[in-house]
């Protein structure tokens, strides 16, 4: 019974990890780009970028399907340049989960970066550091805890992603059927026993994640 859950679980972990990684890179870069200054334009930009968080997942999934699909702007580019399509693939599931989760990292990153004392960044500049060096040696190390908190939320969101994933990647067992989709299909097929065992696995995974998160955030490097 529990073996039913292994394949979807491993797939979900793979998709969620890669999605969080992708979302982190984009979220941190954009968080840095948006910067400390709260101008009207920058705040509007941040709000627009946060849209995936507030849109219903199926709406998000629909727009992703339109953009990434056969006739979509990005879809046709991918097909003509690389000969690949993201629809019905686990890579598509990664993209869907990443888009859904990245606003969580963006907001955490922007806030954490502005919390870093500007004077420290100035000190680094006066010591000869380039902007990239300032970012990697001072800003990021001092902001990482806040960003990590955002990333953990993003991972949880990516693990539970359903609506957008279903639209973009479909529910193909073994290929794109993540744990949430597998539970849904099992319920729809009337296989309650299978659904129940997968729900238990989800719960255990969530609890383990929470414990790991608490440990990570507690460990102090210096007072």
């Amino acid at each position, binding site marked *: 019974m529990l073996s039913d859950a292994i394949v979807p679980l491993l797939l979900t972990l793979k998709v969620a990890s890669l999605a969080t990684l992708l979302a982190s890179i984009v979220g941190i870069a954009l968080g840095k780009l948006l910067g400390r200054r709260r101008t009207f334009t920058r705040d509007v930009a941040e709000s627009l970028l946060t849209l995936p968080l507030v849109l219903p997942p199926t709406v998000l999934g629909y727009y992703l399907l339109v953009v990434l*699909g*056969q*006739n979509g702007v990005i879809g046709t580019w991918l097909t003509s340049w690389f000969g690949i*399509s993201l629809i019905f693939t686990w890579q598509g599931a990664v993209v869907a989960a990443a888009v859904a989760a990245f606003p969580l990292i963006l907001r955490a990153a922007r806030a954490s970066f502005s919390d870093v004392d500007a004077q420290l960044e100035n000190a680094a500049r006066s010591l000869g550091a380039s902007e990239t060096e300032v970012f990697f040696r001072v800003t990021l190390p001092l902001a990482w805890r806040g960003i990590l908190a955002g990333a953990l939320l993003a991972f949880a969101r990516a693990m539970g992603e359903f609506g957008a994933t279903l639209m973009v990647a*479909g529910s193909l067992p073994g290929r794109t059927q993540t744990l949430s989709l597998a539970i849904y*299909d099992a319920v*729809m097929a*009337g*296989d309650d026993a299978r659904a129940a065992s997968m729900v238990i696995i989800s719960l255990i995974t969530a609890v383990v994640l929470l414990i790991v998160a608490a440990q990570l955030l507690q460990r102090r490097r210096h007072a």
Partner: protein
Amino acid sequence: MRRMNRLFLAALIGAASLHACAADVIVSAAASLSNSFNDIGKLYEAKHPGDKIVANFAASDVLLKQIEQGAPADVFASADEQTMDRAAQSNAIDKSTRKDFAANTLVLIVGANAKPPAKLDDIAGGDYTHIAIGNPDSVPAGRYAKEALMSAKLWDKIQPQIVPAQNVRQALDYVARGEAQAGFVYATDAETQKDKVHVAMTVPTSTPVRYPIAVTAKSQHAAAAKAFVDFVNSAEGQAVLKKYGFSAP
């Protein structure tokens, strides 16, 4: 003064009881019945003022699951006998009201601009990266397709190409959108998107595609539900179904 009050009260009660006869009839119907049942619902409402038809479309198995778990559906219309049989077994329906009301055919569709396959076996070929089929675990259309493909000895061969859809309309959408190169839907579904998909061939199924309808066992509006079921089977209801391409049961 007192007589006025009494008359007024009587009028109030009269109006209230009239309103009490009006019902919200929830109709859980297979996804392939979307267009036809929406039209039938409106015609029914015109004939029975005060009654409102609330339609709930999804794959037949999903609908049955909802009913079994206590969803307040009054009418259940499924796309195959198998699901209705299960409904009868779990006492979800009033068996005396069960009646077949329509029939359909299974077809293989491809995108409007694609070259249709000459025979069914062709779909096993490399051009058909994705073939959309309703998930046989929960969609009757998927079961009909699986049955046909198994007898054609194609089912195992095309496994890697299959994209399971949540219901027959989603399978249709996948082909219409170009994400799937072929799909198995009902002839009536193909009609609704005839500018985007073409019927390559009719797929004969050993089990005939027949739609039964029944009043649910726990319906709170049994009378109105029965009236709706009768309306579906009436000349008017049948005419609407025929318009959308369904045949007589």
